[in-house]
């Protein structure tokens, strides 16, 4: 099998040619920042926003920073202005059930004007009502009613008094009532004079007095009735006068809101209430200064609370809206979503009224679109349930959480629920979507559309230009420097590096935006007006430097031989594998020594990492595959009479992944064939049972990790890395590596089969079997077979001796 040629420099890094851009700097672009490449997600968004049935809300899923919110908002910003403007909503006092404030729906812009109209009405009534009730006509009519009662009462008593006088009996006012007594010459008869009268006379007087008393009692029994009647008459007069004063004002309002039946009904209720409570308008409200200085008395406090009933609490005012609202709620707490009922402290107690009802994001977005971050939503207590309830019932019902969970015990309100028609767009990571989809039965009912955002975009002209537009739009929006096309090209190249694929670009736009900001910072340090490629490179180098503390400490340990990594000699059964470490959002590669030892045995390959439970299942699987390969290739005619042990030397943490399985196989073959491996190479790639080398992740970081060590020890021209051939398309290596390869001081080999790799590593041909399946003498495979045959024979002899003894 021929040894593959080392990779050329153009295979190590796919440049973005700035000449392909037809702009000089991003300032020449139109400033639009549309996300390209998200066709699947955009199609789902279009579908989700277009379909008007229940439950077709949208979940935009994808890693954070992929521009989900921007994409959704951009789409809605185009769509929303063409939709009709939703109605206004306000809460007003419910005169029949004050605990249940009424919700009023008005055409856009009308709620605010109703609020100010009502304020104006109350203000006007403070002058109109006193004027009406201080008019001469009213005063005269009221006096007439009062005097007629007095007269009725006085006349009845006077008549009785007169009648009594005719019989020489006086009606006398006592401290607590009335009494009758016989008189003589205008004076009440003394008791001794009375007793001197004849018995018949006395009896006659007593009878007369008794009769008069009965008459007086019946008159007095009538007095409360007359009083009630006169009060009723005065009330009727008051109603008449108040109604007359109020009618033109209410009529004016009714004509202003003609056609709005609910408002007309509300105005009628208001009219009745004002007529009933006209006296409240006869005294001026306390001035704001009085209220401010705390001079407000209990009575005037009650009075000012009284007028709250005529206010209008405008929840949603769409007067300045063009089209449907698009609302993004950054803190989707329950009360921020469905609204809240606040309380005010008054004389140490908590009180509330309908003016303290606060709208939530659902109110503001009603008739339009509401965008929420799914993670933040789920982190807020009760918010997810509140949102689902609103979507399920299609009504926004404001409930005080404190009340609901008995945290406060005070009078609260139950406002009338408001009908809800909204498209909710949740933004979240994929795992959240799948968790909700699996565990929450309501979720699939309510969020029927998923917009799955790609992690990567194809690296084509269109998407490269989209990167440039994004940078240009950012520069315009955030007033930072524009990028020249070389700088854009460098950003595009970094986009490929982040995607881990030379033919792709990352869709993690947050990283790109961060790079743009940092590049702008460095350009400003250099006093440049435009960001150039060197600024981008400086930003990338700075990012790398900031994150490289642990990486450098590890390399230092290798240079000091605290961690043993040989890059100079040849060793049997030992090889340099490559591992990737992830720390937060940063990855870096590091070489690890892998060793293999063999002895007589029953054909098993022992993975020491697995034995001590430091290896993950994928790693163990990779090692077990090695047994399959060894058995199938070398033990068809004889038993595999060896036991092998494999270990990652000096690893003190867990190991996962099968990217070291090819390295392990090379170490094993070297150990069996007793052929040393050149330690100036490092190896990565997984292997299957046929010995084919398969792709792995993090190839760039792995190569860079080994290169950095070799570079610090001094490049000899021999050093290099063996990578799976299928990973060549992922290569976006650092410039210094590309340079070293170009200089011939470092090599990268694309390996497709284990036989290719072993030849590079040992300098001994792997060997191709002849028609009988025999490998040419001196080849690696022939040596492996020879050693295995010898071990099988030894094993056989040992077993025979053992059986003889028995």
């Amino acid at each position, binding site marked *: 099998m021929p040894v593959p040629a080392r990779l050329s420099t153009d295979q190590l890094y796919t440049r973005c040619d700035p000449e392909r851009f037809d702009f000089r700097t991003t300032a020449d672009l139109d400033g639009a920042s549309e996300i390209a490449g998200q066709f699947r997600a955009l199609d789902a968004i279009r579908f989700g926003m277009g379909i008007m049935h229940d439950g077709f809300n949208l979940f935009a899923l994808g890693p954070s920073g992929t521009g989900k919110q921007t994409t959704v908002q951009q789409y809605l910003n185009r769509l929303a202005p063409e939709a009709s403007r939703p109605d206004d909503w306000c809460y007003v006092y419910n005169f029949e059930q004050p605990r249940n404030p009424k919700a009023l729906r008005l055409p856009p812009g009308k709620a605010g004007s109703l609020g100010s109209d009502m304020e104006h009405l109350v203000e006007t009534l403070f002058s109109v009502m006193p004027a009406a009730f201080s008019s001469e006509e009213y005063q005269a009519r009221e006096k007439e009613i009062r*005097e007629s009662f*007095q*007269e009725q*009462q*006085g*006349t009845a*008593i*006077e008549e009785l*008094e007169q009648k009594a006088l005719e019989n020489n009996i*006086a*009606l*006398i*006012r*006592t*401290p*607590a*009532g*009335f*009494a*009758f*007594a*016989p*008189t003589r010459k205008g*004076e*009440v*008869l*003394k*008791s001794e004079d*009375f*007793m001197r009268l004849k018995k018949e006379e006395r009896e006659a007087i*007593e009878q007369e*007095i*008794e009769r008069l*008393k009965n008459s*007086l*009692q019946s008159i*007095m*029994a009538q007095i409360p009735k007359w009083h009630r009647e006169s009060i009723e008459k005065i009330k009727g007069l008051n109603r008449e006068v108040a109604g007359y004063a109020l009618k033109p004002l209410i009529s004016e309002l009714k004509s202003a809101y003609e056609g709005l039946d609910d408002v007309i009904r509300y105005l009628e209720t208001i009219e009745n209430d004002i007529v009933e409570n006209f006296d409240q308008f006869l005294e001026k409200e306390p001035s704001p200064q009085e209220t401010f200085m705390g001079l407000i008395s209990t009575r005037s406090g009650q009075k000012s609370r009284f007028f709250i009933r005529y206010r209008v609490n405008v929840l949603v005012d769409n007067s300045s809206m063009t089209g449907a609202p698009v609302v993004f709620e950054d803190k989707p707490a329950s009360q921020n979503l469905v609204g809240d009922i606040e309380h005010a402290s008054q004389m140490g107690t908590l009180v509330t009224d309908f003016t303290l009802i606060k709208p939530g994001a659902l109110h503001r977005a009603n008739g339009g679109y509401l965008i929420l971050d799914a993670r933040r939503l789920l982190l807020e207590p009760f918010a997810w349930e509140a949102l689902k309830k609103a979507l399920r019932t299609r009504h926004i019902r404001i409930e005080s959480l404190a009340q609901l969970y008995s945290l406060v015990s005070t009078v609260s309100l139950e406002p009338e629920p408001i009908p809800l028609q909204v498209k909710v767009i949740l933004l979240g990571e994929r795992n959240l979507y799948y968790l909700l989809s699996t565990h929450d039965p309501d979720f699939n009912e309510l969020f029927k559309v998923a917009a799955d955002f790609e992690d990567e975009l194809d690296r084509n002209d269109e998407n490269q230009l989209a990167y440039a537009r994004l940078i240009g739009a950012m520069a315009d929006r955030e007033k930072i420097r524009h990028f020249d096309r070389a700088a854009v090209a460098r950003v595009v190249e970094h986009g490929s590096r982040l995607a881990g694929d030379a033919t792709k670009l990352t869709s993690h736009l947050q990283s790109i935006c961060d790079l743009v900001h940092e590049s702008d910072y460095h350009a400003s340090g250099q006093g440049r007006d435009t960001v150039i490629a060197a600024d981008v490179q400086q930003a990338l180098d700075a990012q790398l430097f900031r994150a490289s503390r642990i990486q450098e400490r590890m390399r230092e340990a290798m240079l000091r031989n605290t961690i043993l990594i040989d890059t100079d000699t040849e060793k049997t059964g030992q090889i340099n594998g490559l591992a990737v470490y992830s720390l937060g959002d940063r990855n870096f590669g590091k070489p690890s020594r892998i060793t293999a030892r063999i002895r007589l045995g029953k054909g098993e390959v022992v993975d020491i990492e697995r034995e001590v439970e430091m290896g993950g299942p994928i790693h163990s699987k990779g090692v077990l595959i090695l047994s399959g390969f060894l058995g199938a290739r070398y033990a068809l005619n004889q038993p595999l009479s060896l036991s092998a042990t494999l270990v990652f030397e000096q690893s003190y943490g867990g190991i996962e992944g099968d990217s070291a399985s090819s390295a392990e196989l090379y170490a094993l073959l070297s150990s069996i064939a007793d052929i040393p491996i050149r330690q100036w190479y490092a190896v990565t790639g997984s292997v299957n049972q046929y010995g084919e080398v398969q792709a792995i992740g993090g190839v760039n970081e792995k190569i860079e990790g080994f290169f950095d060590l070799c570079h610090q020890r001094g490049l000899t021209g021999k050093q290099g890395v063996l990578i799976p051939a299928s990973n060549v398309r992922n290569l976006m290596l650092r410039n210094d590596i590309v340079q070293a390869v170009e200089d011939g001081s470092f090599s990268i080999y694309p390996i497709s089969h284990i036989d290719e790799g072993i030849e590079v590593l040992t300098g001994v041909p792997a060997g191709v079997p002849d028609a009988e399946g025999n490998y040419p003498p001196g080849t690696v495979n022939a040596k492996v077979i020879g050693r295995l045959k010898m071990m099988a024979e030894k094993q056989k002899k040992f077993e025979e001796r053992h059986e003889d003894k028995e």
Partner: protein
Amino acid sequence: MKTGMIRRIAVAIDCSPCSLASLNAAAEMAGMLRAELIGIFVEDINLLRMAELPFAEEIRLYTATKEKIGTEQLERLLRLQAREARQLLQRAAEQFTIPHSFRVSRGIVPEEVIAAAIEADLLVLGRSGRSPSCRKGLGSTAKTALAKGKKTVMLMRPGFSVTTPLLVLYDGTEGSRAALETARDITRPGGTLHLLFTAETPEEKTRCEREAVSMLSGTGIRPEFHHLPLSNGKRLAQFIRMIDSGILILSDRMGLSDETLRNLIDEIDYPVLLVRQP
């Protein structure tokens, strides 16, 4: 009479709304004139005699039920009323820092009030007292004071005060001049004083105006003139009601007949100060 001679003002107090208005007006006036205030409370002998009768019963005002009433109980109630009257007087006198005294007598109320006020220069009492019928016109005490009293008398009713603009009936007679002098003494500088001239001719009216202006000169009082040629009491009462001012001040020695005067005072629903000259 010179009003400067009002040194003692007697006020009848029976704790009724009218008598409270009387007390306030009397105290205000005493304050202005630096006069002494004499409170009079009369225990109605008729009431006490009634209580001694074997069948004495009262009908309660707010329940219309019959209750036996005895002398002892009545005397206790009258004592309580007298104490309340004394307290009201004290409070009013303290407010205006005037000397005061309080007298309780027993007898027929109108006679006792007139007798107790004999040493006073002005008697103030309510247009109606605790009369049973809550009548519109004058009460029995007021009527007696008008008919039998020799001293200047003021009949008050609630809702008025000495400080509201006064109205003087002026016809150029000596009596009306005395009335104007009294009004002048109890009107504060800068205050308004209504004058109603009953002169029958324009010349007479002009003369009256001149006299009035001369009498008020230097006082700072702003006079407002009204004119109604003398006619019967009813028309006069109507006109006074139209002017709608405060206390009506007139004299018993004007060009009005006793009957017209009595009718006017009875008819009009305003407080009246009737100036009498010895």
